[in-house]
């Protein structure tokens, strides 16, 4: 087992492992076959709730909408006492202050997207200032997007330096690096981008912005999780994982937990190292917990609006 603090040499990213796509898809589909019922299911669902970054990233977001989301984060479903809180609320930089005030004293973190989210097509200077703005307003975590155009052009050093610069601008805030896997297209490139992000100092790697189709899939997340595992074995550093976009069902979320547990192990099974970026997942999880409690299938009308 490698020890922390050992010397990390930055590898040649053109030599990152190639991915066997058929194998990855096959492996990912196995995680969906586990039977998780009753008490184990309830515990799993509660863990999922505790890992959610409750998200609103719309052009039409207002302060009122953000406040409402923060209220929801603190009161997921008052009819069910004893539920855990979500991990964080994820908003645009301009809404960080509002969210921070609304969540005061609750222990729920505020995450902010930054760096020209969601396209990332902004100058380095703008990206750094975007990040600083979010952090200065109180963001505990920053979700940045990488420059996919530069990445496709083979300018890996540019992408690497940019992540490192944003990491520096983050200061104490933890940095999540969004790869936007649907933009990266091939599995090989997803693995390569994961490696670049981790060596450049990412605290988390995150699949997608949730803004483009198709959303990221389990095989994609598996590749990233395996990259995290390999990185850990090489350097001794743990990196977090955040799948986002398209995860709206409790059942799928449980599949992800199975995958994390079986690939990365128990150490990652908490919201310090694993998150779900989602807006509608929380309600489905609540409905499933309620179903387990009452034995009756639930109706969305009885739960808060997302």
């Amino acid at each position: 087992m490698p020890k922390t603090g050992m010397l990390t040499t930055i590898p040649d990213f053109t030599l990152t492992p190639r991915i066997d796509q058929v194998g990855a898809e096959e492996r990912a589909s196995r995680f969906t076959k586990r039977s998780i019922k009753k008490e184990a299911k309830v515990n799993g669902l509660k863990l999922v709730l505790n890992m959610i970054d409750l998200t609103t990233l719309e052009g039409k977001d207002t302060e009122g909408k953000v406040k409402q989301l923060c209220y929801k984060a603190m009161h997921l479903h008052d009819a069910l006492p004893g539920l855990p809180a979500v991990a964080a609320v994820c908003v645009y930089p301009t809404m960080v202050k509002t969210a921070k005030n609304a969540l005061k004293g609750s222990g729920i973190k505020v995450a902010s997207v930054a760096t020209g989210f969601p396209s990332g097509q902004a100058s380095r200077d703008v990206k750094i200032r975007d990040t600083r703005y979010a952090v200065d307003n109180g963001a505990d975590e920053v979700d940045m997007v990488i420059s996919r155009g530069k990445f496709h052009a083979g300018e890996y050093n540019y992408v690497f330096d940019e992540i490192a610069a944003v990491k520096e601008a983050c200061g104490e805030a933890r940095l999540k690096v969004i790869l936007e896997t649907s933009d990266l297209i091939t599995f090989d490139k997803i693995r390569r981008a994961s490696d670049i992000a981790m060596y450049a100092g990412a605290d988390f790697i995150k699949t997608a912005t949730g803004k483009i189709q198709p959303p990221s899939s389990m095989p994609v997340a598996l590749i990233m999780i395996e990259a995290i595992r390999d990185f850990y074995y090489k350097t001794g550093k743990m990196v977090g994982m955040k799948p986002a976009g398209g995860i709206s069902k409790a059942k799928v979320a449980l599949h992800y937990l199975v995958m994390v547990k079986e690939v990365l192990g128990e150490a990652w099974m908490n919201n310090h190292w694993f998150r779900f970026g989602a807006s509608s997942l929380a309600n489905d999880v609540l409905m499933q917990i309620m179903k387990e409690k009452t034995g009756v299938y639930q109706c969305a009308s009885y739960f808060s609006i997302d």
Partner: protein
Amino acid sequence: MEKEIKKSSLSVSENGIEKKTTQKRLEVLKTYKIYIGGQFPRTESGRYYVASSAAGKQLANVCLSSRKDFRDAVVAARNAFGGWSNRAAFNRGQILYRMAEMLEGRKAQFIEELIQQDTSRSKAEKEVNLAIDRLIYYSGWCDKFQQVFSAVNPVATSHFNFSVPEPTGVVSIIAPQQDGLIGLVSVIAPVIAGGNTCIVLASESKPLCSVTFAEVINSSDMPAGVVNILTGKPSELASWFVNHMDVNATIYCEKDSSVQKMMQDKAALNVKRIFFYDKINWNSDEGQSPYFIMDTQEIKTTWHPIEHIAGSGGGY
């Protein structure tokens, strides 16, 4: 099903002398699957039961649906509800008429299936004709029952006050056991004519027509999820049909009083509307009425302030 096509052909027997033989064609049998969200999946549970005639002849292996199939069907029905209830009433009428057209075109198949399930030919023909007519009947009512059952109400304040029927939502139906086709059509048609979506559990003992009827629905421009048809045991599924929080009304067509009692108890959970159509002869005229549509409607009353224009008194 028993038809066989005889083909004559020449083949050479062992001793080299040409001999005439008869080949029996291997018949292609239909797999009777359930109908959820516009798809024909097998039951999630992988179970089946054998549907047979009174004489004990095996007719088909039929899906034995589970509560999870029902849950999936409710999700499909709920998703379909917004689109279906917002369609122009006239358009719903067109689609029901289209169903009648499709049923007319497949008459022979339905008659065959009814005969296999122990109905005489003349009765079967009558039942299929009646089913077609009943669809036409409800097709006509689609854009008319609103006028008949709406009202402008006299009120003492300066308000324009009116009441209109609106569909209640997702309806779960346990269809009549005895009438494989006419019973099924008679309970589905008024529910969807009114803009609701539904999940129907077909007759356990006579399920063949229900699956074929799903094929009729599927080729009638009916949006996916408006009608979902399951096959299986009412004894197993009845409680799930009535305690699902996302179901707004339940229709039950049998006389079993213990089931009725159970349903009344469980329906209280979300104040579901519950109807027992247990004394109706679906083969007669009492099996069709706009009041069946009204059972799954809610009356919505609107108070609209009237502007007092130039001292002209109340008006709108």
